[in-house]
């Protein structure tokens, strides 16, 4: 089975190389000057003079579409981009560039470029979001002579759905913390699973009032031993959840102290999880501000 995106990729790749597209301007000293000035490159070979050459790394700049430029109708990268745009993968970031320079170019030479689609791989989960890696091959010519070539890869991604390691700060859904719950999050930062205590009664999730309604009572907390058993659980498959890698297990654990606390059950094979499974507390540090409580299977 292949997806519509893979079908489209095969079709576009099968079209092979696009027609050559001529650079807007011949290689010229003015653009070279602008380039080396911006880059801060003082290499004397690019300075005006009889033996001037263009910086080799400028090759792609000569054939860029420009401010109002449009991709040619047969440009495979443009066609693939619009298919991925339509599929919701609207953002793009370049990931790889591999340029080979056969010779340096001199002012007055007029390059042209052809493109072809090499491969489309995905969907992949990346730190930026789910996306497809699109790889193209560009060849630059002066007349019939190949002067440079490039393998270029971009990630075309759906922004916002980023999932990386559980401790990726940008991706985690952060808790809203109130005066009643801040002790809990102070505890997790220290590796303590704190449970609110009103006299002899433990309460989780915590709140501002004791069970008996005594307005003069003040809450305290105990540090739970951290051991308990799975009271219920689920294995999450769809959709993606920020900061998590699917499938993952979320468990509601009944602590030995008698209260239930929810957390991800880390590194557990879904098949081995069952109600009654002994677990212990774990702590996933996200950043200086936030550590999430979690569980791991007790040995």
């Amino acid at each position: 089975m292949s997806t519509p995106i893979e079908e489209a990729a095969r079709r576009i790749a099968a079209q092979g190389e696009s027609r050559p597209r001529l650079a807007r301007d011949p290689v010229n000293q003015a653009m070279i000057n602008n380039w080396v000035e911006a880059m801060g490159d003082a290499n004397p070979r690019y300075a005006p003079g009889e033996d001037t050459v263009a910086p080799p790394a400028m090759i792609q700049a000569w054939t860029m579409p420009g401010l109002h430029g449009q991709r040619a109708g047969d440009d495979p990268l443009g066609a693939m981009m619009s298919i991925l745009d339509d599929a919701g993968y609207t953002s793009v970031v370049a990931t790889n560039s591999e340029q080979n320079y056969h010779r340096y170019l001199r002012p007055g030479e007029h390059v042209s470029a052809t493109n072809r689609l090499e491969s489309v791989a995905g969907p992949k989960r990346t730190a930026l979001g789910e996306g497809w890696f699109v790889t193209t091959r560009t060849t630059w010519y002066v007349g019939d002579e190949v002067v440079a070539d490039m393998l270029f890869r971009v990630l075309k991604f759906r922004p916002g759905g980023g999932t990386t390691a559980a401790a990726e700060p940008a991706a985690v859904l952060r808790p809203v913390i109130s005066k009643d719950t801040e002790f809990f999050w102070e505890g997790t930062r220290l590796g303590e699973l704190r449970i609110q205590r009103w006299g002899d009664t433990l309460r989780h999730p915590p709140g501002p009032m004791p069970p008996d309604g005594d307005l003069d009572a003040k809450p305290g907390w105990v540090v739970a031993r951290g051991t308990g058993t799975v009271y219920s659980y689920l294995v999450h498959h769809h959709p993606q959840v920020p900061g998590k890698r699917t499938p993952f297990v979320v468990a509601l654990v009944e602590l030995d102290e008698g209260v239930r606390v929810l957390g991800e059950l880390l590194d557990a094979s879904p098949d081995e999880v069952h109600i009654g499974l002994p677990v212990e507390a774990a702590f996933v540090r996200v950043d200086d501000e936030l550590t999430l409580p979690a569980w791991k299977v007790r040995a």
Partner: protein
Amino acid sequence: MTLSGKAAIAGIGATEFSKDSGRSELRLAAECVSAAVRDAGLTPSDVDGLVTFTMDGNAEIAVARELGIPELSFFSRIHYGGGAAAATVQQAAMAVATGMADVVVAYRAFNERSGMRFGQVSSAAAHQVNTSGVDNSFHYPMGLATPAATVALVAQRYLHTYGATSEDFGRVAVVDRKHAATNPDAWFHGKPITLAEHQASRWVAEPLHLLDCCQESDGGVALVVTSAERARDLPNPPALITAAAQGSGPGQYIMTSYYRDDLAALPEMGVVGGQLWRQSGLARSDIDVAVLYDHFTPYVLMQLEELGFCGRGEAKDFVRDGALELDGALPLNPHGGQLGEAYIHGMNGIAEAVRQLRGTAVNQVGGAANVLVTAGTGVPTSGLILTAA
């Protein structure tokens, strides 16, 4: 003093149900309200009250402006997601019964599939700065962040406690889709499923398969409520509001009431059910059709238990022998429910109840006189018993 029999649903209206309406939510609201008012034989200038969900994106005044409703003397909103559905009718009935308004329209319209999808992770829900945001802080950051996941945790405990199986959940989906298959307005018209297909569908949040989860839809539904007396003079047979109730239970959360003694239960629906039976004076056997909120199949089984149609833990046996079929003991969701017809946050189920009482449903249950309708479960919820006049 009782609300029972004081008010009636005199008009129903809906847009088509789709995956991409191609128009604004306000346009959908205007279309369904307009259709409902017309169905009631009224005009917008007769309307003086509007009720919707707190989640609805269309302000009452915006709907009034678009339809040319000149003055509103009553407007109100109900909280807790799909739990609001039946309660919008309750609010409208209370307003009518107390003379606060003469004609109140309850509506819900959204682009839930092409716009903001409830099945996705909502960082807005996680980050709201209020008590619900604090409640969610003990769940969302840990990865429990979608409606399906919140239900899966309860479903797993239910399976464990009562020895039910995923196939028992699947039987609910199969009957809903069977009914939708013969309903031309249903998204899944002509597309019944088998229990094997249910079992083969991919996991969403184990133990929930994809086919345990309702679809996502664009559309709108509106219901016109007026006094029983006035309704009798209008063109369509009135659906009398015999009972209407809201309910929340001990240790109540939105979808995450995980800290109660019994996790495998929906006590908030028990609170609703108790009131419905008391207000109506009806027995379970008097109910001819049940329109039970079916965003996730396990909660249909648990509702059958909470409402007393069967004993605790016995829903799996109740649904095994065809009780939910159109000719069974308790025909379920003849329109196909939200699994089969459309997910309009429970409001399309109330419209179906009215059609059953009028005798105009596509999958008509013969002689239907009393229909019980419930709203969203896992949240503070609501319910109705409607009766043919």
